[in-house]
């Protein structure tokens, strides 16, 4: 089953009296278990595309199917529950809750999913280990470096074993070396856990790691390719 399938999806933003077509009749299939990178110039519609795939925005036209379910007809609550079960997010600014420790940030999606305490502990420790922060579980985000924060964010995105993880410019706020380590981590976890990861990025390091690439410009997909490594 394809984790993501978009058919003729359009999205228009209204900025005062001006209409801006962010996406124009986009059709896209993302294969399961791939590390897919969406790239394109600023304002090309990368983030809008990612938002629609992540079910945090709705298209004006077209059909969005995620994890085998058409999502545009879902109610807001149903979409929230759907995201909590099937989708993980990694943000450019990490977006961790500053009042929670690294452990608690990772645990949060499991609380939403009403996972039993023992299972929560097992999964959170497993992921803290996996992202190399086993000793920093008690640290607040403010006590962690940018790279460590992004590792926590990755762990949070994976902890509820989603089918799909979306990452919006995950290396944009990191230095080159840290960015490379984050990409390597994401790639490793993606392969170990068989999860589909879709990344929006300008970063050539990220594009180089991709199994599949989608290039977007002016709201249209102008090129896509499967890497041989896939």
């Amino acid at each position: 089953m394809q984790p993501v399938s978009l058919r003729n999806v359009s999205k228009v933003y209204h900025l005062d009296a001006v209409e801006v077509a962010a996406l124009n009749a986009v059709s896209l299939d993302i294969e399961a278990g791939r590390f897919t990178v969406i790239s394109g110039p600023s304002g090309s519609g990368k983030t809008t595309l990612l938002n629609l795939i992540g079910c945090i925005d709705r298209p004006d036209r077209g059909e969005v199917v995620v994890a085998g379910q058409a999502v545009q007809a879902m109610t807001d609550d149903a979409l929230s529950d759907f995201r909590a079960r099937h989708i993980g997010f990694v943000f450019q600014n990490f977006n961790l809750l500053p009042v929670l420790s690294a452990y608690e940030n990772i645990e949060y999606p499991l609380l939403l999913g009403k996972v039993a305490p023992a299972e929560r502990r097992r999964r959170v420790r497993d992921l803290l280990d996996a992202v190399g922060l086993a000793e920093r579980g008690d640290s607040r985000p403010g006590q962690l470096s940018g790279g460590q924060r992004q590792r926590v964010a990755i762990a949070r995105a994976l902890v509820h074993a989603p089918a799909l993880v979306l990452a919006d410019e995950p290396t944009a706020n990191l230095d080159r070396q840290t960015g490379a380590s984050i990409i390597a981590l994401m790639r490793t976890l993606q392969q170990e856990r068989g999860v589909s990861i879709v990344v929006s990025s300008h970063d050539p390091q990220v594009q180089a790691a991709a199994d599949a690439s989608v290039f977007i410009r002016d709201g249209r997909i102008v090129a896509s390719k499967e890497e041989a490594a896939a």
Partner: protein
Amino acid sequence: MNARALLSLALRNLLRNRRRSLATLLAMVVGLTAILLFGGYRANILYGMQTGFVQQSGHLQIQRRGYFLDGGDNPTAYGIADYRKIIAAIRSDNTLAPLVVEATPSLRLGGIAGNFTAGVSRSVMAIGLVPEESNRMLAWNDYDMVSYARPLPLAGAGADAVVIGSGLARKLQLCTVLAVPDCRQASAAVDAPATKNATGASAPEDVLALSALEKAQQPPAAQNRIEMLAATAGGAPNVASLVVIEAKNMGIKAIDDLYMAMNLSQAQKLIYGAGVPAVTAIALQLRHTAQMPAARARLAALLESEFPGEPLELLDFQTLNPMYGQTDQFMGSMFGFIAMLIGVIVLFTIGNTMSTAVMERTTEIGTLRAIGLRRSGIRRLFMCEALLLGAIGSAAGLVCALGIAWLINHSGWTWTPPGYSYAYLILVRVGQNTPLLVGSIVGMIGVTMASAWWPARRAAKLEIVDALRHA
């Protein structure tokens, strides 16, 4: 998300900006403290008044119909001759007996009291009562008030003994013999001529004549002996020679200048002579004020079944003392105004705090929504923060109010209420007033929740992509 995790997150969010949370809490603490202190002060005044009225006139009174409104000047027309039977019926009633502390008759009468040794006389409002029973009523103190009531020394004294107000004692120039304080006429009274003629402010001629007649049959007058003139049931003047055994400060000057208490038998002798004695009221004092509705209902049924021919009515202490209800309304309106004012201030303070929190945490709201928290979850999170603020603010306000109340109650501060002739201790009853405590705290938490509702709703309605874009 479970309640524990929600509360923990809400608490940490409150602690995130401690200065702002403290400022908000301070507004709540000051507001709640002001409400509780004023409420406690109001309760003390009302309980004090209630205690005084119930000690003097009971919770309920049985009177002849119309006496309260029209019969004050005419006790003879509104007398209850069967009062002994009525009291016996009350005391033997299975329902009423456990509720009633005391059932006692009284007779109110007006007249003129004269100290003819000093040559002065004054109008008086007298009450005839059964001293032992009246004194037992003075022991009622359901609210643990600082009571100024002292037993009447009539019990065990002679049948002609009376107690008068200290103001009346001054008017009758009995200051020295009764040791009345603040009395400028003391020396004048001692030196006053034995009698005066009809000129000036002295007694009327007929009173002097009657007095002289009675005096002739008596041993030489003591310095505390006075005469009282009253109209009998038949309309004839009647005079009794009385011994003032004590002057008593009645608190309210208007009453202090007119008050006289005597034995019921003496009062009945003055009004009814050798005729059938009656009373103007039967006072019933209950164990607790809350028993009034039950006692009243049973008493009404008892009077109707046992004394169907008697045109009697039941009056409660609020009706008998309209000042109680007026004071209650006045203090209540002031309390309501203060509470409303503080409520509005707290409403806007917390609303502003929560709105600022929503604005500052917009990206966080977007993140939580993205990872699967429902709109209702966001709303619940902010409402939970408000609930915690309300609970912490209420607890701190309660502690603060109890502390200040303790200080006030132990300060010994006094004040003289309007119309009163002596000062009362200033007391505030916060800890003992459960309805006030519960009402104020629930109200404060309610205001907190109400003020957070709009910001919480706004946070919940944020679109995820807009929230995530917020810098």
